[in-house]
């Protein structure tokens, strides 16, 4: 659906984005991760026709987003990281204004406004002035605004920034709803565990370059090179260790009081073979689980940060 090829953006001498390549398929939720100033917002702005790239190409369904920006703008909904709202408009008027930009008129405009307010749980605030809304509500309203023309692709730049935990959970629920509606979503965030839970794939960008991208599990595998399995057994720990060492794909064993952490280089079938061997030997296995990698840890490993 969205394809980025050799994207470069320079601000004077400063190279904000360097040779960025990315493919995002229909229905995907892509998490864009990176430290401040990594080039996430710049890339997102170029996608939405708000900045001209220095070189490279972004196409949406094969159509160049810069050359045919007017055609593309119907298909993209954008929510910036910092956004303003017109203080002197009411919530419904705010959405109706954006609807009228897309030539949505009459009863359809009212229906869309009502539906969107319901989606972002702001129906009870439809007659309130935008100025009187809390930050979380304003962000939800801004998300509703980006959906007013029913775009296929949503570009959300830090949609949950500055929100309290409750508002973040509500935003996550809305995004899950949008996912179920089949929208393709590109989302940047610093709240990595939430991204890992929500996204089908993730890209980590640092100093303008894409460091790593793929599904969360693929990234984990690339970064950690091997899986870690945690096995909890009752009483017969030494016997279990002996047995595990016999397998060629078992790399390293770290034993605790009643647990063994195993560095594992095999695939899923090898994992099931290990488990069945333990059970066949009569070792009482209480739990056997692959440890989930932590996206935050991956992020810290692959990004260097500003070391001065």
């Amino acid at each position, binding site marked *: 659906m969205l394809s980025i090829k050799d994207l470069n953006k320079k601000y004077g001498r400063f190279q904000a984005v360097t040779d960025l390549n990315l493919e995002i398929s229909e229905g995907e939720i892509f998490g864009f991760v990176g430290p401040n100033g990594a080039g996430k917002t710049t890339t997102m*702005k170029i996608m*939405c*026709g*708000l*900045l*001209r790239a220095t070189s490279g190409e972004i196409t949406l369904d094969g159509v160049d987003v*810069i050359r045919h*920006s*007017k055609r593309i*703008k*119907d298909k*993209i909904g*954008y929510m*910036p990281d*910092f*956004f*303003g*709202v*017109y*203080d*002197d*408009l009411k919530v419904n*008027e705010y959405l109706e*204004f*954006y609807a*009228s*930009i*897309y*030539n949505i008129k009459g009863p359809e405009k009212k229906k869309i406004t009502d539906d969107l307010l319901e989606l972002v749980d702001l129906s009870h605030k439809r007659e309130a002035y935008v100025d009187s809304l809390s930050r979380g509500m304003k962000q939800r309203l*801004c998300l509703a*605004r980006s959906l007013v*023309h029913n775009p296929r692709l949503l570009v959300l730049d830090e949609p949950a920034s500055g929100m309290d935990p409750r508002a973040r959970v509500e935003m996550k629920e809305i995004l899950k709803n949008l996912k179920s509606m089949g929208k393709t979503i590109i989302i940047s965030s610093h709240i990595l565990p939430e991204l890992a839970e929500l996204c089908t794939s993730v890209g980590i960008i640092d100093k303008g370059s894409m460091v790593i991208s793929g599904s969360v599990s693929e990234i984990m595998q690339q970064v950690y090179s091997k899986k870690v399995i945690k096995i909890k057994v009752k009483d017969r720990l030494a016997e279990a260790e002996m047995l595990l060492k016999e397998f060629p794909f078992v790399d390293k064993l770290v034993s605790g009081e009643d647990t063994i952490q195993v560095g594992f280089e095999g695939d899923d079938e090898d994992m099931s073979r290990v488990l069945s061997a333990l059970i066949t030997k009569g070792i009482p296995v209480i739990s056997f689980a692959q440890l989930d990698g932590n996206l935050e840890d991956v992020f810290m490993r692959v990004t260097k940060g500003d070391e001065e």
Partner: protein
Amino acid sequence: MNINPVLLKELKVRMRGWRAAGIIALYLLILSLVALFIIYTTFMNPYGSSIDPQVSIGAYTGLAVIQFILIMFIVPALTAGAIAGEREKQTLDLVLCTKLRPISIITGKLFASTSQTILLIISSLPLFSMVFLFGGISIKEIIQLFGFYIMTAVTIGSIGIFFSTYLRRTTAATVFTYGTVAFLAFGTIFIGVFYIRIFYQWNYQSFLPILYANPLVGFSSMLAGQFGYFGGGLNFIPGFHIANPVNNPSALKAIEPWLANVIFDAVLSVVLLTLSAIRINPIRKSIFSIFKLKRKSKRTAVDNVE
């Protein structure tokens, strides 16, 4: 009919509440006081008669001048923040990422800001109709005056919008807009004075072309034309020498200064609005990059030849 959504939104916001009504009331109060003062002083003149067309001409001129000055003060304040304010409130990107064309955003903003002024102008019509009681002024002249007001308001509005798009801060845009209006109104006269003093030693018997850009000169030449004087009350300005067009067969001289000023205003407005629309287009190609590309392609051609 498709009404520009930006214009519609702005009108809704600007006309909401008591503020808009309050501004109109205050504006009309000032104009009424001026009209009453002029009529009172004219009636108090022991040599004047009670039904004298001079009363209406005095009141008309007084009202027209005050209204013109008010327009020159109000419009910059209303327009200079139009785009810079959107940038400060971080709402500009949200409009730019929609399918609304930059020129629609610019014209929507311009007409929303100037429509408030146009409303003030139109609301003053009943006051102007008062002068009909005394005779001496026709409807055609009032229409001509109001047309000139609207054109001037749109031009000053375009200047405001232009600075609002090129400067990031509303304050800076407001200062530059007032500065440009002051330059057009007074700067052109100073330039004319220095030019005539240096090159003609005050002996210049024609209309100085730079004054065609001056709204005050255009305005006074129109009033003067309405009362049948050529030169009006501004004959003391060097270069403001208006001859009867009937005696001037050349095309430029046959155009009255107010009409030339209207044409200048129209051209200036179109140029400034176009530049503003280009400026806010986020994916515009920079002029410098076009030059760079040309230079690069030239260099490549030279390299190929070598």
